[in-house]
């Protein structure tokens, strides 16, 4: 039989066709399955985080009639700063609670009753009095911040779930009474986005960590992008090919794979111990993250520079452009999208980094929102780590909420990267 008989060939092809199609279908199925698994994991993760964390965006408040009794407060002039400082606002809140539940008389019960309202309520009222000194001696109705345990209990009641936490039966009674009279409800938790960390879960906010992250990343970006791009340009365009540059290249590639905690140790040794910089500040955090991000930026920038078509370089050189003109006029603009992508990936990596920052003390409990790169602060992932470690039940939902904020931050950074790419990318 002739090997090159077209009829025989087509018969053979026909025969193998089904097998090939089956193999093809199987091959596709593997891919679809993998994507399915990844998606499922993602869905589970998000469902868990969102269902846990969504509660943190609402907070329980209790309505009370507050009497700014000058006697109880122990002050005569609300305009006087000094007097305000020592004013017994706490007493006013307690008095309001007593007035709401007059039947409570024993000391123990009273203490339990007082703990329905958070200490945060005291601070709020103090601020209120400071803003409106005329309120001294007046009555006013407020929605006061509830304690975290009451918050947790009330939210579970609202959701119709059973609750087994740190609330006594008396407290449950009172909450039920408040509920019957409509004096307890949940509102949007503004405090979560406007305040720093706190030991009291109901008062703890994410802003401090968010600003800390922003400052740290700003320092990182400002330092690592120019340094990384300059290093990449030198290595790609100017450096001669010899052992030294080969050595440098290998080391840069290796650095990208070094565990981040090592960079933390380096930062601790150099910036804190050698240069005596303060602990816990975004400046040092940024410096450490710069070291960590540099290899990523250098590698991706070199790749982007390499991807610039040689025809454009030749065109520029052929026109009599100097090497620097060629790089600045043509290579960098064309490589910019790639370099930015690298930088954003590096930034995203830096944003999620915890270990090196622990080493330089950015793990401290910091209540104040940082105002600059030299103020002590913490960052989002560290905050998440701290809250996840806290025993209070209400911190659990705050941890998830913080994760959502972190993810939101990441997504918006990536969106920015995509937008920048679109804007800067040019066809050639």
């Amino acid at each position, binding site marked *: 039989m002739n090997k090159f008989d077209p009829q025989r060939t087509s018969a053979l092809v026909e025969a193998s066709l089904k097998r090939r199609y089956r193999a093809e279908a199987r091959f596709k199925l593997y891919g679809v399955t993998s994507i399915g698994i990844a998606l499922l994991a993602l869905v589970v993760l998000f469902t868990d985080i969102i269902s846990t964390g969504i509660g943190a965006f609402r907070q329980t408040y209790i309505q009370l009639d507050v009497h700014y009794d000058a006697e109880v407060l122990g002050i005569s002039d609300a305009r006087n700063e000094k007097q305000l400082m020592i004013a017994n606002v706490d007493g006013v809140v307690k008095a309001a609670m007593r007035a709401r539940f007059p039947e409570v008389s024993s000391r123990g019960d009273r203490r339990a009753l007082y703990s329905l309202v958070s200490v945060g309520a005291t601070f709020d009222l103090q601020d209120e009095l400071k803003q409106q000194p005329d309120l001294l001696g007046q009555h006013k109705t407020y929605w006061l911040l509830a304690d975290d345990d009451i918050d947790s209990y009330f939210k579970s009641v609202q959701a119709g779930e059973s609750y087994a936490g740190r609330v006594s039966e008396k407290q449950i009674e009172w909450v039920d009474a408040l509920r019957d009279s409509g004096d307890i409800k949940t509102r949007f938790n503004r405090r979560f986005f406007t305040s720093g960390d706190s030991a009291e879960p109901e008062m703890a906010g994410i802003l401090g960590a968010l600003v800390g992250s922003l400052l740290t990343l700003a320092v990182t970006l400002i330092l690592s992008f120019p340094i990384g791009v300059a290093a990449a340009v030198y290595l790609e365009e100017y450096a001669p090919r010899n052992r030294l540059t080969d050595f440098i290249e290998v080391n840069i590639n290796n650095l990208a794979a070094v565990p981040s905690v090592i960079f933390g140790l380096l930062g601790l040794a150099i910036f804190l111990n050698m240069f005596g910089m303060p602990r816990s500040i975004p400046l040092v955090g940024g410096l450490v993250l710069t070291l960590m991000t540099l290899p990523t930026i250098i590698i991706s920038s070199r790749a982007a520079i390499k991807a610039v078509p040689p025809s454009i370089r030749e*065109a520029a*050189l052929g*026109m*009599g452009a100097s090497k620097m003109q060629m790089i600045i*006029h043509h290579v960098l603009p064309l490589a910019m999208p790639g370099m930015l992508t690298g930088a954003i990936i590096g930034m995203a990596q830096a944003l999620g980094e915890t270990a090196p920052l622990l080493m330089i003390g950015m793990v401290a409990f910091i209540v104040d929102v940082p105002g600059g790169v030299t103020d002590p602060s913490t960052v989002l992932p560290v905050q998440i780590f701290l809250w996840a470690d806290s025993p209070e039940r209400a911190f659990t939902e705050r941890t998830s909420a913080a994760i959502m904020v972190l993810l939101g931050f990441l997504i918006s950074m990536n969106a920015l990267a995509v937008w920048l790419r679109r804007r800067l990318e040019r*066809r050639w």
Partner: protein
Amino acid sequence: MSTTMNDTFLDDNANIPEQAVGAPFSDDAKIAIRDVSVAYADKKAVHEVDLDIGRNEVIAMIGPSGCGKSTFLRCLNRMNDTIDVCRVTGSIKMDDIEINDGKLDVVPLRARVGMVFQKPNPFPKSIYDNVAYGPRIHGLANRRSELDDIVETSLRRAGLWNEVKDRLDQPGTSLSGGQQQRLCIARTIAVSPEVILMDEPCSALDPIATAKIEELISELSNNITIVIVTHSMQQAARVSSRTAYFHMGRLIEVNPTQQVFTNPDHQLTEAYITGRFG
């Protein structure tokens, strides 16, 4: 022609002449090339070329792939500098200025000796900026109006003005291949070079675009010396006044184009242009 009578017709090396046959020298040379060799690392790509490029002539370089014609072309504006391992020896004098001199600044040289490449490579900028790039970096225009003038004149000379005058702000890459190549030529002539080197400028273009470029070449040759490397023998025959044939890194023959294509002096030239084995 008696050489074609012998039996070693297919034996290349036996027939490579010491010196290029024909008329490699000119009385009115724009560029005088003497004993030029090019080596990549230890591999010699061009061997001892002696050649005069006449003033305002169009000289075509033909030869099989890898014969060194492009490498040789790139010596003339020192584009080989960009390749680390490339070493050029010998003397290349343009109007008594030694081009192949390490101390010579290549920036002004490349303004005088422009280059057009095989693939149209406009910058990813607007048509206007493409043409204005050279004048800008060399500081040829002080005012915007002067620059406008240079851009218009260059585009007109490149025969592109009427096609692009209404869309100068559009990217150069939005043009068709032939227009892009003419844009590249406009960009080159915007710095008024004395010599233009063309490295297979039409290899990516269709016959009509090619014809337009060829027409442009003959117009430019009124006051510009043009050295063109081409794989198309018909193109060499159409545009050039002299033709140089390279073979395995050696210049084999230089003669008036008419002679090369009707009655070449060397059998290797003959074998190449008639499509024989060799």
